[in-house]
């Protein structure tokens, strides 16, 4: 009688142990499963944040690109006829503005560089890779105008940057009635937020 009861109790406690082990295993599996989900989710979120930061940088550069190419200090006057209504830049105004780096610093916060390049006809001969400066054959023998470069070591701008470009009509007044237009490109760079921590826009 007693042995039967004892056997029953042992069987019951064994069953209980098996059930406990089962429960523990299920709990472990659940913890493992949710752990994996959390890891995937956090990685996904991290990528999303990085993507958003990149997008914000690009938006900032895009907005600055529009503002800079539309600056009255650069835009063609009405003397350029129908070209003046489009994204037209006066090459002489460009020359004047390339000597006013401080203006960009004052008016546009968070810039790292502004450059205008000649695209077509491409610069040839001595003009290849040359910055444009005033001379007799201006603007023939040069390749680009460096309007602004953020000084390195100023605490910002030394890291990576996002740059965007857009085509512009680059016009030069030859006489009071004659003007010539070529195809240019304006490049605007902003420092990456992640690299510098610099904020702000124009």
């Amino acid at each position: 009688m007693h042995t039967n009861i004892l056997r029953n109790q042992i069987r019951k406690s064994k069953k209980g142990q098996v059930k406990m082990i089962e429960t523990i295993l299920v709990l472990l599996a659940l913890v493992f499963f949710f752990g994996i989900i959390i890891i995937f989710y956090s990685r996904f979120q991290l990528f999303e944040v990085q993507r958003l930061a990149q997008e914000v940088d690009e938006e900032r550069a895009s907005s600055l690109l529009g503002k800079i190419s539309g600056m009255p200090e650069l835009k063609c006057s009405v003397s350029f006829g129908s070209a003046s209504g489009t994204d037209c830049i006066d090459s002489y105004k460009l020359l004047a503005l390339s000597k006013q780096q401080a203006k960009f610093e004052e008016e546009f916060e968070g810039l790292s560089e502004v450059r205008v390049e000649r695209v077509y006809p491409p610069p040839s001969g001595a003009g290849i890779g040359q910055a444009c400066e005033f001379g007799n054959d201006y603007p023939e023998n040069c390749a680009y105008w460096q309007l602004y470069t953020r000084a390195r070591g100023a605490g910002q701008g030394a890291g990576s940057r996002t740059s965007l470009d857009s085509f512009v009509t680059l016009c030069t007044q030859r006489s009071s009635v004659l003007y010539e237009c070529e195809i240019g490109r304006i490049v605007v760079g902003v420092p990456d937020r992640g690299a510098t921590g610099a904020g702000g826009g124009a």
Partner: protein
Amino acid sequence: MIGAQDAGRGAGSARRGEGGRELRARGRERGREKRAQEEMLGFAFVIVLVIIIGFVILMLTLRGPSSPLERENTRVNSLLNSITHFTTSCDKESVQQLIIACRNGESSCGEDSCAFVKGEVTKILGQTLAGDFRFSAEVTAEGEEQVLLEIKKEENGECSGKRTSFVASSVLPRRTIIKLVSCPEMSASADSGE
């Protein structure tokens, strides 16, 4: 006396037998309840799983519209504008003026205006666009629909709506429309790093 005791014992064991049956029935009932609870828990777990997977899929699909596409559109638009105002080597005429001359059937610099513009624009597009493109000038006046000139570079198939394409168009005088379709090989347009 003994007989009465026996009768009492018999009644007791009968009561015990009834109680045991009742207990067993209750145990079975509890077991069924437990199993039902377990099944409910499993069902809830499956539902939670489905919700999590659905949430992840929703997040992946509901990503915002990619702004590089908008920017590329603006870029192609500004390129077309620049091309139309480009001063050619032919009497300092702009591409726009030469297209009008082509529409009027005039010649420029001793050459057919259409052929001259075609040559000039082909060179410009070769220098400015990396991928495939299609440039055309058309007249769309009533009762007069004519393609004045067409320039194509379609190395990776037709540059049409089937591929990611960016279209810009501009209306010139006398119902002449110029259109530029760019089909770049899609990559991030913004370049990072110094």
